[in-house]
């Protein structure tokens, strides 16, 4: 067992400046994860060769892998750094920001595109009336709940997009995250009233047709969401939507 923890961190001072690498070393302590280790580095931001530098910038929030904020590349794999335990990682631990989102600073990226795409695809459920509509809450069968609940576990971390060969900084593809949320909202008893709108959004630019079925998304999803099942199901919904659009009026 080594008595230190070594890091190699890709740093970038501003969105437009070029990235560079720095190495850090901190004393070993059992139970460290990447976030707690980054906090130690932040206390004394000195590189391995003794240079005092600006503290490393990263985002984190929940510390229990449910907010997605601390997602980054750890030894080349996309992970949440709060749940990435140091004891499980080869050293030096290489930290990089996600490559498919614009870097804000160091390990912090701008994931706003995902929220914009949620808006574009109307991936929400309208309330069924802000007044008394004399009806109880819509019912969902146990079977349906079993099938769809897992899609609500999405933490908008961006892992599925990071590994997608069709998702790129310079294109419009919305990716598995959005398709899964459209699937979830289209199955909801109230949400399904807006199904056609969501499907039409996915039939537009950057929609489901851009998917190349490489299926990396489902391999890396930290919440184990069956993303490719959503892609298949929404693909079927879109096929029927095309038939309705072309022959239904």
């Amino acid at each position, binding site marked *: 067992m080594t008595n230190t923890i070594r890091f190699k961190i890709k740093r970038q001072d501003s969105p437009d400046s070029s990235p560079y690498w720095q190495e850090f070393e901190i004393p070993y302590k059992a139970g460290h994860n990447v976030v707690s280790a980054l906090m130690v580095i932040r206390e004394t931001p000195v590189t391995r060769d003794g240079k005092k530098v600006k503290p490393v910038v990263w985002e984190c929030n929940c510390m229990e892998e449910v907010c997605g904020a601390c997602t980054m590349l750890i030894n080349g794999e996309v992970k949440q750094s709060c749940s990435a335990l140091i004891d499980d990682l080869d050293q030096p631990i290489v930290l990089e920001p996600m490559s498919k989102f614009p870097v804000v600073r160091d390990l912090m990226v701008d994931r706003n595109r995902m929220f914009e795409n949620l808006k574009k695809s109307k991936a929400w459920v309208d309330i069924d009336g802000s007044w008394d509509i004399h009806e109880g809450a819509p019912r969902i069968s146990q079977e349906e709940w079993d099938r769809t609940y897992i899609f609500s576990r999405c933490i908008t971390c961006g892992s599925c997009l990071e590994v997608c*060969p069709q998702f790129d900084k310079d294109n419009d593809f919305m990716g598995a995250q959005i398709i899964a949320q459209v699937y979830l909202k289209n199955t909801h008893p109230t949400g399904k009233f807006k199904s056609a709108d969501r499907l*039409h959004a996915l039939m537009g630019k950057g*929609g489901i*047709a851009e998917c*190349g*079925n490489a299926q*990396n998304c*489902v391999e890396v999803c930290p919440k184990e969401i069956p993303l490719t*099942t959503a892609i298949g199901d929404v693909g079927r919904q879109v096929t029927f939507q095309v038939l309705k659009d072309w022959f239904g009026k």
Partner: protein
Amino acid sequence: METIKDNSFFYRRLHSLLGIIPLGLFILEHFFTNSFAMQGSTVFNDKIVFFATLPYLIVIEIVFIFIPLLIHGIYGLYIVYTGQANQIQQSYYRNWMYLIQRVTGVILLFYIGWHVWTTRLSALFYGKEVSFDMMHKMLASPLVFWWMLLGVVLVAFHFANGIWSFSIVWGITIGPKAQKRMGYFTMGLFVILAVVGVRALYAFL
């Protein structure tokens, strides 16, 4: 209600459909017809005459083969351009299939371009006779033989694996189990088609 302002969805689905109908069906017919070569030159040449004397042949060829090939090939190149392979970071089976589908597609664009020229267009323009004997002479060159063997195997793969992704795109196979079964089926089809194609090729030697 939201209207669709962009045609990429239409082209992408058209590309997907054309790969199966008519191009996939044509591959099945083509491999099957070529297999008559195993029964000798007379039988094979009879089939050539049958196809060459079909009414409206040129229309059939243009509408059901030439135009679909062009659209599928050119839009396919565009699809290759929109992707960024990442096998080194993400070495999953399906991700490899994603890459192989694109690589075979690009090679086949060259192969089919060459094949259409040598065995159809040059015959049409210069009155060269297409027959068992012509294939026999062409395949005497080891370079041509191995090039055609490669083309046959790659087209078998590209078609079979294309059925796999077609089934997801159009919503036929949704869950992972169905997709896995379709994976076995399509790889089985790949092997069978490749064997049929290569046997036909050998029959001309």
